[in-house]
């Protein structure tokens, strides 16, 4: 096992993956609790489009992903609603957002078809095995910062999520906290795009949290479990990807989904 970490790309992947997974697991717990699964899905689409938009505009890709995703997250908070999957307006807007992503993709890949194609696929399905050392350190550091901020607001956010009226009456700053969480969610999605890609975000963000909530009804234990599960899925996915000829993000998503099914099954019996 130790020789896996002898490879630079595996060390980078493990470092970045740990930070990213921790942030995703912690943020995901609140995503499920606050019923913002489809907000997160939509933010994944935004991450794809803003990443490619950055490439077309000559800005650094990661700056575009973070900037665009956080800005749209704030905008969604301003609109006041949660993106519900059944909402036609939201579906139409985000189909268009993806459509713009396709436009950027075709603009970017014109003249350099191979590079453009790869950039798009990395954004869609992740590229954790292709990180450079500096990127890995940045991703890990960002993951730790996001996690720390999430833990700082964890208790009032929990209160606000399960019992908004009483939380407001007890002095929880409801609006500020909702916005703050959306910003952290946007940053988490932007992070997670590097690991599993824009399309498979929910695998890393929602599945560990949903599993944790099936396994325990204790909130802080569930929060911790969600973070731990996400990190374990990423580690296991990376190890499997080292030996198997399958994409890492496929393996991570499949592990997370399979564990969720088992937890649900076990709970039903």
């Amino acid at each position: 096992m130790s020789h896996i970490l002898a490879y630079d790309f595996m060390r980078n992947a493990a470092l970045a993956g740990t930070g990213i997974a921790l942030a995703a697991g912690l943020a995901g717990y609140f995503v499920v609790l606050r019923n913002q699964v489809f907000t997160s899905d939509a933010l994944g689409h935004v991450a794809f489009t803003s990443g490619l938009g950055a490439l077309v505009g000559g800005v650094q890709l990661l700056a575009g992903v973070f900037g665009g995703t956080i800005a749209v997250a704030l905008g969604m908070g301003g609109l006041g609603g949660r993106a519900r999957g059944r909402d036609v307006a939201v579906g139409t807007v985000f189909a268009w957002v993806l459509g713009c992503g396709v436009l950027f993709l075709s603009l970017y890949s014109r003249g350099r078809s191979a590079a453009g194609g790869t950039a798009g696929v990395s954004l869609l399905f992740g590229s954790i095995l292709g990180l450079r050392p500096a990127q890995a350190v940045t991703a890990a550091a960002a993951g730790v910062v996001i996690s720390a901020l999430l833990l700082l607001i964890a208790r009032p956010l929990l209160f606000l999520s399960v019992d908004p009226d009483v939380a407001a009456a007890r002095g929880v700053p409801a609006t500020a906290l909702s916005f703050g969480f959306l910003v952290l969610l946007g940053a988490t999605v932007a992070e997670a795009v590097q690991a599993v890609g824009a399309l498979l975000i929910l695998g890393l963000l929602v599945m560990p949290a949903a599993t944790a909530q099936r396994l325990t009804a204790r909130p802080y234990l569930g929060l911790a479990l969600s973070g731990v599960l996400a990190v374990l899925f990423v580690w296991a996915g990376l190890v499997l990807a080292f030996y198997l000829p399958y994409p890492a993000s496929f393996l991570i998503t499949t592990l997370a989904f399979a564990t969720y099914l088992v937890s649900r099954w076990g709970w039903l019996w």
Partner: protein
Amino acid sequence: MAADPEPVLSFAAATAELGGRTVWRDVDLEIKAGEFVAVLGPNGAGKTTLIKCVLGLIPLARGRLTVFGRPVQRGSDRVGYLPQRRSFDADLRIRGVDLVRLGLDGADWGLPLPFARAKSARVAEVIRLVGAEAYARRPIGELSGGEQQRLLIAQALVAGARMLLLDEPLESLDLNNQQAISSLIRRICREHQVTVLLVAHDVNPILPFLDRVVYVAQGQVVSGRPEAVITTETLTRLYGAPVEVLRTSDGRLVVVGQQEPVSYHGHG
């Protein structure tokens, strides 16, 4: 009645507005410690606004409001709140005991310390007080309406509330649970000297316990003793629809007819 002569709640020439519209105006009202007060009135008359003013969630447009002798302030530990029509989805996987605990320290930043014995003891104490020990550790979404309501009352009490603001706590409960919850509220009121303001549509389950009735209608807030307010004439005028107050053979009052959408016959 209570030994404390100071009013715990006092409105003086108070006016509330919502979106530019006056909800009620020039309200003078004093509630004493340990009183069990029903807040009655038709839909949209401003009962919930009254409660939210006491919580500091809606500022008064004019006038003065003091709670426990001090200007109203948001997030006070001495005021417990049970919002209207709150039930938890079946898929909310958070235990009842956690919900009660949030009432104690949920507004604080960061994570709770794992060995805060005093807080755990306080949570256990209020859960025992409301009689919810048997199911407090089950996910709140799996509990019945009556069980959820007991835990929510525990949550409202846990920070040391001396006054409970209960917005329609008996709604959507069956008859047995309505009686069980109202006698629980009365016990908390009498044995622990906690002032209770209870917003209700159906006054019958709490009628025997009331010290005072506050009614909110047509921009006015008026209070009085139950015998004075719970009469056919007053209630009919208050609701703008025929209401009849009957006295049963053992002397209890029963209010009938207030839900029926029949046409207005001059007076009841």
